């Protein structure tokens, strides 16, 4: 609690005591904080590293030799890529509209952006089933055209998009707001078309916020389980993502490969975390200047 000031103690002894008591409290608080984080967050990380490697490095190579593991990662990659591209492009556009434009119902739209953050992933999967599964609102429409949504890739992509929507919008929006329209107007007066203005002026200015939002979406998309569990049908080798693979591996008690894949996902996430923190720092540094 602050650094120095003694409480008006008259003898130097009293002040010294207070100062050292303050240091003690400071030390205790830091220790308590660090302990909590270590026990809650770091210990489990250690746990999984131990569990995955316990069987020796062979387990690791065996796991990655399996076709279904490779396919699972590939599928995760595809879904994540499509999701991130979609929510970035549409999110950037939406953020621009929400900040710069005004029309009746805009506030409602604003509130909608927050919505996916409040929805449990199982509910998201459920939504897809209610829309595209048997008896769903659109099931006939797609069945008639021979397009399979549920228990196939499309629904998995759709639910992943749903849960990833808010991140880019929430990070880019405030930046756009802070920046104001001055630079964009200046560009227009100098003869730039709206597209030129967007790419040459607006985009560079929101760069860090955009990257931050993209990194968050990537992490979220990569880690999705609840919704895809419901819509995918978990068809091995076809609609099984990396997370779904881990789920099945644990259920079928072949834990070794499950742990390895989980650890791999954890490692990727930590890399993403580094990116997230970097972008976050750059963005707040720019915001401050």
């Amino acid at each position, binding site marked *: *609690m*602050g650094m*120095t000031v003694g*409480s*008006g103690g008259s003898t130097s002894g009293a002040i010294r005591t207070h100062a050292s*008591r*303050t240091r003690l409290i*400071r030390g205790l*608080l830091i220790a*308590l*904080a660090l302990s909590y*984080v270590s026990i809650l*967050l770091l210990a489990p990380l250690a*746990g999984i590293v*131990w569990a995955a490697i316990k069987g020796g490095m062979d387990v690791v190579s065996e796991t990655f030799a399996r076709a279904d593991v490779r396919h699972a990662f590939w599928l995760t990659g595809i879904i994540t890529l499509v999701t991130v591209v979609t929510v970035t492009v549409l999110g950037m*556009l939406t*953020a621009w*509209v*929400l900040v710069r*434009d*005004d029309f009746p119902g805009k506030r409602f739209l*604003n*509130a*909608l952006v*927050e*919505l996916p*953050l*409040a*929805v*449990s*992933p*199982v*509910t998201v999967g*459920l*939504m897809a089933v*209610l*829309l595209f599964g048997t008896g769903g*609102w659109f099931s006939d429409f797609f069945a008639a055209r021979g397009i399979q949504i549920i228990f196939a890739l499309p629904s998995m992509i759709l639910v992943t998009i*749903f849960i990833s929507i808010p991140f880019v919008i*929430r990070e880019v929006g*405030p930046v756009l707001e802070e920046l*104001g*329209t*001055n630079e*964009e107007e200046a560009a*227009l007066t100098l003869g730039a078309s*709206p597209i030129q203005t967007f790419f040459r002026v607006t985009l560079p200015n929101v760069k860090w916020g955009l990257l931050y939002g993209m990194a968050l979406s990537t992490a979220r998309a990569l*880690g999705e*389980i*609840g919704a895809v569990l419901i819509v995918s049908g978990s068809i091995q080798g076809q609609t099984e993502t990396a*997370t779904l693979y*881990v789920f099945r591996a644990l259920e079928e008690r072949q834990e070794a490969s499950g*742990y390895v894949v*989980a650890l791999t*996902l954890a490692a990727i*996430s*930590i890399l993403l*975390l580094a990116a*997230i*923190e970097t972008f976050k720092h750059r963005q707040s540094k720019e915001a401050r200047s």
Partner: protein
Amino acid sequence: MSSQVIEGGAALPPWTARLRGLHLGRWGLRGVAILYLGIAILLPIVAVLLKGYADGFDKLRLALATPGAIEAIRLTLVTSAICTVINAFFGTLLAYVMVRYRFPGRNLLSAIVDLPFAIPTLVTGVMLVALYGPASPVGGWLKEHGIDVVFAPLGILISLLFVTLPFVIRTVQPVLSELDIAEEEAAFSLGAGGWTAFRKVVLPALRPSIAAGALLVFARAIGEFGAVVIVAGNLTGKTLTAPVFIFQLANQFRPEEAAAVAAILFVISFSLVLLTDRLLRRKPRKI
């Protein structure tokens, strides 16, 4: 700074911020945004609400009549509440420590507390099982002493604590950084001890942001699936939570009943999220 054409006097409506010529047709861009959010977000939510309550409360009643349903909801609410209290405390503590103190590893700590945002919830569950499951030294030791983590409510609580840790920190930190330490120092000079100064000067200023963070924790916790489904064991009536219950209903081809229960969870969460935005009015994340 924003170039609103506000020349003193009356604040002009926000249309002045509109850039002529930057609209590809007035409704072009606007329309895309509306369609995007409308179809991607609004439509599915409406589907859940309608399908769940098309027959009034019948589906809900059916769902709640399922053995273990009521217990599941209660378990979810209780564990989420406990988690909220614990993480409100530790979140505030962490925010305080990171803002006010300098120590080696502070930046690393700041990064680590964001870990739950990056890590898949399923992997979190797996990590917790790896650490606390009977096969591990830690888990084994705990079991010997009668503490069950995996397949027990304690495991659920720990999962929730893990995934919700960042929320309070993130809402409190910015507010705390803006507070002038001079106020606390003034309190000291007037004779207040450390804790008193904190309680009377800092805490009142932090209250809205702590509350906002806590609400977010609760909203997030009641919907948690990935970690819980691995750790809890999902024993009906004992360690079955509401989201997992909804999952089971969906798997049993009872989607309308699932929707009925899911809608309740959703309404609670969304209300809390909206309330949070209001509490954080000082710097609204809303656009």
